[in-house]
């Protein structure tokens, strides 16, 4: 990103004199990302994955997260318009669909509940969403299915404990790591009075499922730690979401192992989205991200946007030193590159 670095140095504000060139780069990049994010909002209040496309729940949630990661939002016009889009997108059963033409809810319900959880005017929407989440049980771990499975001969096709239950990407399917992590985060962020009665039980089962589905060497993939006797490889994004979800869960060796895996993997990350989310994850656990092959300043706001609004939003959040979600735990900020 030499062009940005040069232009930043030319425009240096005296107030920024204590910042390094790299930090200034990060500050400028974040500012450009935020501007672009605001430009991408559609007239209906939602955000598309790419400019000019239809508004979708997922990019809308990530855009709101990024725009209001460190600012109050209650009376903001942009927020209210977006909240309006989310409220009108909600289905009668309390869930949110992945796209407006769909008539069944999906995993994005968790994102919507999370992002609206502090908005008093959306309290009823969040409560209905959380109720749907807690009533949505995956089909693979139903008692009947487990009974049928128990009658079959043991095989090494997969190795997992089916008594644990998380959430699927879509209703009536199987538990997977990422939707389970997002649902856990939605339950954690909700006001206690909004939670259904079985929320605590669902959380316990889901935390157990995440630990059960961890890859043998630490980290997570979509949820297949071992198939046909072969260990699965962990993936960065799935590992990060699982670690966010387990932030307040009881400490287990698996979590420490997974953090170590992520720390080691961090230096090899080549994609903007994984780099941003991994950085937030490590900072959330109070770990300074190690030096990596790539830094977020290798990309521009436009290239983040080409990768999708969600990537643009993740980059904004990763570059926000004052973000409240996911919060940054204390650690030495001496060498943090890109922080403004």
């Amino acid at each position: 990103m030499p062009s940005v670095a040069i232009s930043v140095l030319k425009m240096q504000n005296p107030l920024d004199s204590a910042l390094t060139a790299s930090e200034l780069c990060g500050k400028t990049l974040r500012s450009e990302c935020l501007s672009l994010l605001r430009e991408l909002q559609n007239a209906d209040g939602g955000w598309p994955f790419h400019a000019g496309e239809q508004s979708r729940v997922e990019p809308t949630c990530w855009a709101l997260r990024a725009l209001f990661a460190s600012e109050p939002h209650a009376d903001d016009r942009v927020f209210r318009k977006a909240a309006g889009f989310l409220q009108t997108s909600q289905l009668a059963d309390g869930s949110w669909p992945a796209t407006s033409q769909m008539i069944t809810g999906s995993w994005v319900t968790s994102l919507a509940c999370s992002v609206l959880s502090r908005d008093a005017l959306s309290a009823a929407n969040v409560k209905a969403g959380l109720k749907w989440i807690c009533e949505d049980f995956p089909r693979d771990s139903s008692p009947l299915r487990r009974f049928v499975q128990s009658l079959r001969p043991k095989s090494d096709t997969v190795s997992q404990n089916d008594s644990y239950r998380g959430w699927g990407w879509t209703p009536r399917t199987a538990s997977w790591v990422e939707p389970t992590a997002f649902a856990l985060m939605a339950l954690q962020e909700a006001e206690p009075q909004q939670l259904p009665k079985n929320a605590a039980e669902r959380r316990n089962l889901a935390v157990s499922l995440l630990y059960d589905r961890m890859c043998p060497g630490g980290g997570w993939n979509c949820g297949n730690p071992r198939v046909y006797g072969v260990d699965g490889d962990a993936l960065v994004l799935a590992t990060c979401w699982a670690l966010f979800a387990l932030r307040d869960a009881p400490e287990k060796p698996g979590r420490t192992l997974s953090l170590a895996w992520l720390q080691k993997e961090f230096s090899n990350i080549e994609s903007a989205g994984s780099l941003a989310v991994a950085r937030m994850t490590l900072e959330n656990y109070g770990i300074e991200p190690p030096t990596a092959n790539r830094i977020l300043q290798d990309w521009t706001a436009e290239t983040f946007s080409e990768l999708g609004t969600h990537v643009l939003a993740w980059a904004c959040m990763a570059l926000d030193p004052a973000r409240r979600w996911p919060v940054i735990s204390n650690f030495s900020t001496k060498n943090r590159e890109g922080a403004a």
Partner: protein
Amino acid sequence: MSQRNRELIPSFSRPASRVMIRKVARYEEDLFALIYESLREFQLPVKDKTVLLKPNLVGLDPQGVMNTHPAVIAATRESFLKLGAARVLIGDGPAMDRDTQAILESVRLKEFTGKLGKDFCDLNIDDVERVQLETRATRLKELFLPKTVLGVDFLVSMPKLKTHHWAGVTLSLKNMFGVVPGSCYGWPKNVLHWAGIDRSILDICAAARPDFAIVDGILGMEGNGPIQGTQKAAGVLLLGNDPVAVDATACRVMGLLPERVEYLSRAGTMLGHVEASKIQQLGEGIDIVKTQFAVLPEFGRLVA
């Protein structure tokens, strides 16, 4: 919506399909010359049209074991451009990892194609359109599919030659799972597994209708594919104007019986030809390039 013909024609009233087998030992060979010359034989209606290449980009693959090799993708793109296509897009929606950029970086696609910009489409997050499933092979009545897939003039499925631990083989028809958007159905697209993989393949292919198939069999995968199998050098590229016939031929090259691959057998009744007598073989003969692929014990019945 493009004007591509999605009408289902019973196989008995279809003309014979054409499948070409080319021997290629290494990715370093002049793939452009080979693919361009091969495509010319088919006289494809692509002049001034938009073509979408749908490779199999299933996961992080720095060793080039599981994904369609970028050299094959780049050479195919160049070939269609030389044949007069107005635009040649590349698109996929990886099934297990939503970080498509990480996968592209791991296979070094840009080094082979140059910067693609908006000519690469992450089908997982493309705008979608509802498609009613007329085949009703599954209980799914509809699927939401990427507008890019539905809107192009010519769709090319470009799988790698692999065995599959649930479907037996994964070739140009199974490769079309990648057009189903993860943003709607998740990573993996688990609703398709619950609907039945074999049946889902039929519904997806009948809805998206790939026009042509090019199989990267230079290095394939045997055993516990599509991710954790063993690399298998087969030294072939297969090209054809009927993805069903291409897959059937690919099975024969792998020493497997296509009639015993459930989805392929059913596809042979409505989407294309499985019977060898209905496939005009071009290029090398099957017996010349045949290489026995190992399968998991559950699929022992597929071995010829």
